[in-house]
């Protein structure tokens, strides 16, 4: 994999990668970039297109993870809500159905596992899960923003390399017709 060491201007954060996602290097000058890569225009464009595809694949994966988390969080919040409000609203009504169980709660942990907890333990477990899920979501959203920036940079670079090539051809053509 070719690496370009184009210097970034001061004031822009320079990050080589983020959690396994390689950063797209910003191209200061197309000619210098092509020289550094040591590739011709078509190969460069192909390389950049492939990079773009790889970014898209990662984006799909992250979006799927984000959807899962976004479904999980209200789930946990509903459980917490049920715990907290049933406790207060249920005196006369709910306790008719289950007298002893007021002190203990069964939580479905998934994978065919259900554990019994005291109300306090259940509440703190759910709260912790909720915090972890929210924190994971934040990191994920930041990953996606970083990824989208790299996609944009790559798209712009592709356009610039292409435009540069078109410009070069025009110049060469103009020179050729001058000589003849």
């Amino acid at each position, binding site marked *: 994999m070719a690496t370009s060491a184009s210097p970034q201007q001061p004031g822009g954060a320079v990050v080589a990668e983020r959690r396994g996602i390689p950063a797209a290097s*910003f191209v200061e000058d197309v000619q210098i970039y092509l020289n550094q890569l040591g590739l011709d225009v078509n190969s460069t464009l192909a390389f950049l297109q492939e990079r773009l595809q790889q970014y898209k694949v990662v984006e799909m994966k992250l979006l799927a993870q984000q959807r899962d988390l976004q479904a999980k969080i209200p789930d946990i919040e509903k459980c917490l809500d049920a715990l907290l409000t049933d406790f207060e609203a249920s005196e006369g009504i709910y306790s008719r159905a289950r007298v002893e169980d007021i002190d203990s709660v069964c939580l479905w942990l998934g994978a065919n596992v259900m554990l019994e907890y005291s109300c306090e333990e259940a509440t703190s477990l759910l709260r912790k899960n909720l915090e972890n899920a929210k924190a994971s979501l934040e990191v994920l959203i930041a990953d996606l923003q970083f990824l989208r920036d790299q996609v*944009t940079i790559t798209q*712009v670079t592709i*356009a610039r390399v292409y435009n540069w090539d078109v*410009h070069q051809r025009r110049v060469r053509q103009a020179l050729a017709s001058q000589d003849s």
Partner: protein
Amino acid sequence: MQQAGGGSETEVTWEDQQNINKFGRLNNRYHELEDEIRIAKNFEDASNELILTDEEVVRFQIGEVFAHVPKDEVEMRIEQMTETTTKHLEKLKDEKDAVVAQMADLKKVLYAKFKDSINLEED
């Protein structure tokens, strides 16, 4: 958002790139906000309907559990939930306005520099 190729030689600086990136991020956020606003509006409509029921004791759903709750308490809870949602909706709309304003500013800057070489409109 696409960049149109025109064979021009306009230089793209890192600052330009950052502006373009920022525009892209704002555009994404704009669409997310539109979706969130639509969902919040649905909830507001639904809770308005609920207030119109006429029974004494209402089955109120908390998570996956239905609790028999007297109508007064249900009304109070729905009122609270509606207020929370309305505030949330207000916040979303304010954020959307801010995003739209920032996008308009960036458009001015970017079109000024790149004119036809850049396309910042929705397809």
